[in-house]
């Protein structure tokens, strides 16, 4: 019995190493996509800027335009990394909507005010409630919604040039083609 206690650290180490070894072979950014193909879950969020229009999933689903929904937070370091790319995309005419997740609204406002704001509308989700509906597991996370309000792609982690060129960009083109057809 006593020996078992003393051997416990070794056992834990072996388990941990096993986990690390399995983790090595994985791409930490590749995500399962339970929501893909499903309609956007219902949520209605207050606007981050007081006085602006609230962000409701029903409104997002209706307008027939494919769009990105980006989940961010002011405390999230990777969000800062991707912010420049979002601003650039917004300038190119890509519709992006934002959800400020598990964040103090004041901090979120300051975060956006300091950089330029790439979002058409930003909902504030301080409790993370909408995040639960969306299955958000961390920030940044981006959902690509088609014109009928169906989630078509989900990307976890920052969007950089490569992700945009190989993943999200082509999908947006495809959705736009579908919307025209």
């Amino acid at each position, binding site marked *: 019995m006593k020996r078992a206690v*003393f051997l416990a650290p070794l056992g834990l180490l072996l388990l941990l190493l096993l986990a690390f070894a399995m983790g*090595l072979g994985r791409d930490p950014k590749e995500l399962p996509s339970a929501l893909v193909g499903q309609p956007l879950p219902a949520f209605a969020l207050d606007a981050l800027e007081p006085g602006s229009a609230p962000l409701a999933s029903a409104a997002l689903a209706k307008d027939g335009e494919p769009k990105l929904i980006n989940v961010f937070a002011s405390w999230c370091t990777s969000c800062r990394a991707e912010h420049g790319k979002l601003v650039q995309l917004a300038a190119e005419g890509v519709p992006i909507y934002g959800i400020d997740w598990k964040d103090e609204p004041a901090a979120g406002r300051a975060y956006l005010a*300091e950089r330029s704001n790439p979002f058409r509308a930003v909902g504030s989700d301080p409790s993370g409630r909408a995040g639960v509906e969306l299955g958000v597991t961390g920030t940044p996370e981006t959902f690509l919604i088609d014109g009928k309000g169906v989630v078509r792609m989900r990307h976890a982690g920052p969007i950089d040039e490569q992700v945009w060129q190989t993943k999200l960009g082509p999908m947006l083109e495809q959705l736009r083609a579908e919307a025209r057809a």
Partner: protein
Amino acid sequence: MGAEIGHFALILALLLAIAQAGFGALGHRRLDPALMAAANVSAIAQAGFVALAFGLLMQAFAVHDFSVALVASHSHSLQPFAYRLAATWGNHEGSMLLWVLILSGFSAMVAAGGKTMRPGFHSLVVAVLGLLAIAFLAFLLFTSNPFARLFPAPLEGSELNPLLQDPGLVFHPPLLYVGYVGFSVAFAFATAALIEGRVDAAWARWVRPWILAAWVALTLGITLGSFWAYYELGWGGWWFWDPVENAALLPWLLGTALLHSALVLEKRGALISWTILLAILTFSMSMVGTFLVRSGVLTSVHAFAVDPERGIFILMLIAVSTGGALALFGWRAPTMRSGAMFSAISRESALTLNNLFLMAATLVVFLGTFWPLVIDLVTGNKISVGPPYYNRIFAPMMIPFLALVPFGPMLRWKSDEWRAVASRLKAPLLLAGLVLLAAAAASFATFGWRGLGAALGFALAVWLVAGSFALLLRRWRSESGLSARLVRTTPLSTWGMVAGHAGIGVMVAGITAMAVFATSEVVALAPGENASISGRTVTLQSAGVVQGPNYQALQARFLIEHNGKPRTLVSERRLYPASGNTTTEAGIAASISGITYIAIGDETNGRLAVHLYRHPLVGWIWVGALIVAFGGALALADRRFRAGLPAISAAPRVALPA
């Protein structure tokens, strides 16, 4: 030529490490002084060759030898000289070479300084350090050769990440590594003790200075890193719970626990196997932390290039070293002498409680860092935990822990009376209570519950500082009042302990003020316009583009006025054309009451986006951490403490009390 010589020096160092391990083990077995001396000489020569390799790599950086692949990818000809040198360790291969350099340096110091130790045991410690050196030199040579050539050599190199081109970052990695690698000595001592099956107070006396030295360096390294992140990243915070920060915090927490448990072992012969286990875990956590964030298992903004081959090598390295040590632990520790007993109220149990809290804190940070990986493996879900997790769990756990700190040194060894302890701490308790009431009364009206939180934090800070000094006063008081003789004979290690604990109090004051009273404001200003924050008027005087040696900067000048006193401040955003990176050089006006911090953003329609922060007492966080480290250094300078260290005759002996 230099690169080839450097590579060859590393190969020789590897061979010498093998000799060090072999001679050391044989020397231990046969107790043959010649073999032991051979092991020591191998260790010292090995350090010499690694230093030669490191010097040659630095030289390649200094003279822009772009035919060395590493130089070509991390050094640009316009980069200032100091940052060309710092680029030596601003990349994976170079930082690994630095790691090996420090390891062999420590190993040589242990080899040279074993005069007071039992020869057989000393030889075994040198052998274990030789094994570690073999592993890391092999990792360096086989997966991360810093001297690989590039053919044809490019005319210009690409640049060191501009974020790293900063004075803070010149010293931050070496200090951090001295901390990480310094714990390898404790690891070697623990492993050697397990092999011998013998641990005693002498063991603890030999190993404690090494633990303390590593811990001081790690404390300084983390402090510098935190300060760097504060002023360079432009996010206006001092800790972000990033995986890389956690990687440094984990061994620090364990090392702090080890520091305290080794004290119990030395003074009372208790907590034997626990201390051994902590020594193994602390260095293992240094390895896990440093390497896993670089191997692609975890994603982090700090991570160097991802390479699965290196990852596998690292895992094998950890499996063999930590796994081997823990297997030895499982085999030998149960049969070792169990420690002396102590009662529930005693200094031993206070230090045990300290260890339990620190272990729990380690677990919280460890889970926060690695849980996302585990969840991913088990359920396929990707999660990330941000500051909300740590704020909710880590902070509430630290408060009772820190509140207990002043009790420890006030308790007697073996057994004590609860009431007697309380009466020894009467004055600081009273003082902290008064601060609590006064601060609560003053701040509840304005800040509500947050004000109460602040009152609690400041009372805790006062309690930590006053409680630590109460120990000194108690020591100094004789029947005829304060005795100058008693002040003079107070050992440096006592001063060090008091400074260490009081420094935490200073940190707590800073952290509390930051958590409750920090304010920030985002404004768009045209030159001549002003904004105000926390009673300060900030005027944008001018904004324009300036040219640096290897960057262009948008530079803004501000005038800050507070109570009629003006002060100017410069804030920059730099663009480094060679890599296309931008950095923030925030403008900082610091005083003892806090920091006014200005970061600038983009300019639109002639107006500059300006982020103003007022961070009351934030500097106290780093000053407190420096006091903690200084306390450690004081204790290290205590002559009685240095028994196990090599004779560092350069240390100021005259200053020591007799």
